């Protein structure tokens, strides 16, 4: 009741403020009148009576001020008046206001942008039920315990059936398949990424479909395999969000399947590209398969800790090693929380980014503090006057604080706008390719709250310091002295701020410099093929027409026979493409070039003693067409490359790269030697050529051994896992000019040979190779931009300090000039301070960098964290820029006219 009453009274007071003020005025007036009237009655003259009455009142304004502050809710009113006053002050100093707001906006904007990324990737909870109870069960060789390898089918069932620690255990494996919405469309078009899951997988994550159901009948693999669950995205894109999609008949890789469910938006399991889920097919026969294709996830039972579960897995790994020595000897199991599995790659770079922007904000705040201090000292007179008129110190501090809050608010709004613009630019670069969960990056309520908290924190930081220095001052000397000569008490504080800014900026710039150095080295690290005017695209032949199943082999793999037409069609397409005008040469490969080797195989030289380490390192295996090396621009060092005459009927041949040649036949000529390749039904092959080394990716520093075989000589009898790659051919087309306009004619050339197959995955090799660096470049651009902001802010800070110093000492410099000081003496006077501060900052910065750049270790490529060249270049550049920032105002000091300077007063 009392509170309500007060609240109402506060509201009344604010609403009728003018009337209340008038009322107070009248009341005090009537007090003076009555006091004066009493005095007159006692015989004083009216004028003297008035004077005495005024003395009795003790000053109208101070009394009014005391009444105002005594009222409840006075602070609201006061704050509001302070804000209005602040606005007026800012309008009177637009350069100051704009500088502060821009500085803050950059600092707050950078933090908001970085946090929106960190929030989406690292902070946002995973879209599962109790995600902290979900773990991934990785298998890792004992000598590489952090490796994240999958489980064999046997391993998976062992974890699922024998562990006590888990409530649910499920597994998944990645597949690619074309989804045809129209059941009559057998070909299906471009394949999309999907996952095969075991029926116990969904309960691990505890997410229900928005439509239909998950798989429930994995125990009947025959029917489960024909059921399909759609991702929200695929449902929207290919099925138009059709609510009646459940039960619809579609084709998955040409096979009929029924849609049974649609998952909620944003649902994914480790792979954001996943567009659909099907149930795993397995049977007793495939149990012994050695391939580690399965990613196993599990939900901990309530009350079971990670440590307990891990202990159980350690025991299980020991048992598995005894039971299945072929696949499990020397393998351990390690559990990883699903959150870590999502974020381990992104965590370090993102935390680094957030750290960098936090430092940028500190630099920005230091600048604002510097500006506010400079401004506070020019306002000394104003404050002194207000104190003399009855303002308390607290009152002045509050007023300064209100101005800071005002600045922070404007800075916050501008910063969020900047972050919004920055985020749009960032998202336009498609960060999903390198950042997990990047599609969820938005400026949502959480991020905006962060922006407000950051602004509030910085306004406290830069608002309190200057207020504190102001409040220490006593009024009288300040009123007397308008411009001082030296002796500014907070000058040291500003100096310390500038030194720290230089130091922090130097650390950031050196870090950015090291990363830039890395990417320059990376981009110079060409893979060894010539990507200009080279176009790549894929053609996929339909499974049903080209493959005949032949049962299963002893290892449990499905076996099959490819039709001889596969090679014929592929080589006809190659011929037809070569005839397109403008095409210089055409090649085809089962494995796209300049990508990580898809198949790793062991190779041994016949009649050659096995080297000790041989067989330990797998060798990249590439089935390719004739003209492959010519088209890619890879030099044939010895012998020849494949020709059309290399067929199943002719001698079985192979080409090795220089690294493999050196390894198998050190110092000898490999041509004519024989090798065996550990591939299904592969015959011994004769080496007919040696080619130059090519990097698999641009991040690879050393060359890996590669072996090439003619795709026309691939054995027709094969095993299940190879069917899809064998039917997907990457064509490489070298043209004399920009190949982009030729895509139409290339497309029709392919359809002339094989009508039903569209071409897809069209890529300029130049772009594709740039893409590998793109994630790096994007990250670096962001980091570099932030470091650049830090540098600019620092330079502004240095400039501001020196310019302010010159401004304050105008009179002094004028006197010195008048007394005959030389140009260099004046310059020295003005520059000395800046020079000392910058030197201190640089020294601290270099020392700091030496200490902290180690955290960049994993992000650098080919550069040591203490690379002297980077350190030197960056330090010299920053020093030069900072000195220039000193020099500009110093020049102005030289231009000071002594007479004018002395007349300033």
């Amino acid at each position, binding site marked *: 009741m*009392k509170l309500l*009453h*007060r609240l109402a*009274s*506060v509201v009344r*007071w604010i609403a009728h403020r003018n009337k209340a003020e008038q*009322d*107070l005025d*009248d*009341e*005090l007036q*009537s*007090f003076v*009148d*009555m*006091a004066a*009237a*009493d005095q007159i009655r006692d015989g004083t003259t009216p004028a003297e009576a008035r004077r005495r009455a005024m003395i*009795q*009142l*003790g*000053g109208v304004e*101070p*009394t009014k001020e*005391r*009444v105002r*502050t*005594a*009222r*409840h809710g006075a602070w609201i009113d006061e704050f509001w008046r302070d804000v209005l006053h602040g606005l007026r002050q800012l309008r009177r100093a637009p350069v100051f206001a704009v500088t502060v707001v821009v500085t803050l906006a950059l600092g707050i904007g950078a933090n908001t942008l970085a946090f929106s990324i960190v929030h989406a990737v690292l902070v946002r909870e995973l879209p599962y039920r109790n995600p902290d109870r979900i773990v991934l069960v990785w298998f890792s060789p004992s000598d590489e315990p952090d490796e994240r390898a999958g489980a064999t089918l046997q391993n998976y069932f062992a974890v699922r059936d024998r562990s006590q620690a888990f409530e649910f255990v499920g597994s998944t494996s990645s597949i690619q398949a074309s989804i045809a919405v129209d059941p009559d469309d057998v070909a299906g078009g471009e394949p999309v990424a999907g996952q095969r899951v075991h029926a116990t997988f969904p309960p691990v994550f505890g997410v229900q479909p928005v439509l239909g159901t998950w798989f429930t009948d994995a125990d009947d693999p025959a029917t489960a395999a024909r059921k399909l669950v759609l991702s929200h995205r695929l449902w929207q894109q290919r099925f138009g969000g059709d609510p009646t999609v459940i039960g619809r008949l579609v084709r998955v890789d040409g096979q009929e399947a029924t849609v049974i469910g649609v998952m909620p938006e944003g649902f994914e399991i480790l792979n954001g590209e996943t567009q659909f889920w099907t149930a795993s097919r397995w049977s007793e026969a495939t149990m012994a398969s050695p391939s580690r294709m399965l990613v196993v996830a599990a939900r901990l039972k309530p009350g079971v800790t990670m440590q307990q579960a891990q202990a159980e897995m350690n025991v299980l790994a020991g048992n598995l090693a005894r039971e299945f020595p072929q696949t499990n000897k020397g393998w351990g199991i390690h559990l990883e929380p699903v959150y870590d599995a999502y974020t381990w790659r992104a965590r370090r770079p993102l935390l680094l980014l957030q750290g960098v922007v936090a430092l940028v904000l500190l630099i920005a705040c230091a600048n604002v503090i510097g500006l506010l201090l400079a401004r506070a000292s020019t306002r000394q007179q104003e404050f002194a006057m207000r104190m003399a008129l009855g303002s308390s110190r607290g009152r002045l501090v509050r007023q300064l604080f209100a101005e800071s809050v005002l600045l922070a608010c404007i800075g916050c709004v501008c910063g969020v706008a900047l972050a919004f613009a920055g985020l749009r630019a960032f998202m336009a670069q498609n960060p999903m390719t390198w950042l997990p969960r990047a599609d969820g990056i938005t400026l949502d309520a959480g991020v905006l709250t962060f922006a407000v908290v950051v602004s509030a924190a910085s306004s406290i930081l830069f608002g309190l310091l200057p207020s504190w220095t102001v409040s220490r001052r006593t009024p009288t000397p300040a009123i007397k002295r308008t411009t001082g000569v030296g002796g500014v008490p907070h000058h040291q504080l500003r100096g310390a701020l500038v030194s720290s800014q230089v130091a922090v900026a130097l650390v950031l710039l050196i870090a950015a410099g090291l990363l830039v150095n890395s990417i320059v080295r990376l981009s110079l690290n060409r893979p060894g093929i010539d990507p200009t005017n080279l176009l790549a695209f894929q053609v996929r032949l339909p499974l049903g027409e080209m493959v005949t199943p032949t049962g299963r082999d002893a290892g449990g793999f499905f076996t099959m026979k490819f039709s001889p037409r596969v090679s014929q069609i592929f080589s006809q397409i190659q011929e037809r493409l070569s005839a397109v005008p403008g095409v210089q040469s055409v090649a085809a490969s089962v494995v796209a070039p300049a990508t990580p080797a898809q198949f790793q195989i062991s190779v041994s030289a016949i009649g050659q003693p096995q080297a000790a380490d041989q067989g330990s390192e797998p060798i990249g295996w590439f089935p390719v067409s004739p003209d492959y090396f010519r088209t890619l621009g890879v030099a044939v060092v010895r012998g020849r490359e494949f020709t059309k005459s290399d067929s199943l009927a002719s001698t079985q041949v192979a080409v090795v790269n220089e690294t493999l040649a050196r390894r198998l036949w050190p110092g000898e000529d490999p041509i004519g030697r024989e090798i065996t390749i550990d591939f299904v039904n592969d015959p011994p092959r004769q080496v007919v050529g040696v080619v130059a080394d090519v990097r698999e990716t641009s991040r690879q520093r050393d060359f890996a051994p590669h072996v090439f075989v003619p795709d026309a000589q691939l054995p027709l009898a094969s095993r299940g896992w190879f069917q899809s790659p064998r039917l997907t051919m990457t064509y490489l087309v070298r043209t004399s000019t920009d190949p982009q306009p030729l895509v139409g004619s290339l497309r029709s050339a392919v359809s002339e040979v094989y009508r039903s197959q569209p071409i897809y995955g069209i890529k300029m090799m130049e772009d594709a190779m740039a893409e590998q660096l793109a994630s790096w470049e994007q990250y670096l651009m962001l980091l570099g931009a932030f470091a650049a902001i830090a540098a600019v802010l620092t330079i502004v800070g240095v400039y501001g300090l020196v310019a302010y110093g010159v401004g304050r000492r105008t009179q002094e410099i004028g006197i010195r000039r008048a007394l005959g000081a030389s140009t260099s003496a004046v310059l020295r006077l003005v520059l000395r301070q800046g020079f000392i501060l910058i030197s201190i900052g640089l020294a601290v910065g270099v020392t700091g960098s030496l200490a902290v750049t180690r955290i960049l270790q994993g992000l650098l490529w080919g550069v040591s964290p203490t690379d002297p060249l980077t350190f030197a270049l960056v330090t010299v550049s920053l020093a030069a820029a900072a000195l220039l920032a000193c020099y500009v105002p110093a020049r102005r000091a030289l231009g000071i006219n002594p007479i004018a300077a002395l007349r300033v007063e």
Partner: protein
Amino acid sequence: MEKLDVPQGTLDLMILTILAREPMHGYGISQRLAVLSHDHFHVNPGSLFPSLYRLEQDGKLKAEWRTSENNRRAKYYRLTPAGKRQLEQQRERWNRASFAVTSVLEGA
């Protein structure tokens, strides 16, 4: 004679007491206070008015503009029922406190 400071927290009590007799304006309250305290207390308007405003805001007093006995317009304060209750409470508390202080001083 040297003036005394108004003891901490007693200004409200004295204002309420004075206003309990009849409604009064600010100047009148300060005069009455001086007279009743035999000129020991001279309350400064800089303390009086903030107290009046706060008491009004708390609903203990009600203010209205009226014409004074010698024909001037003045703002008169009068006690509200809540003000009366506050006065009784504070007086009772003050009596106890002063009795306690006196007992200590005389008993020691």
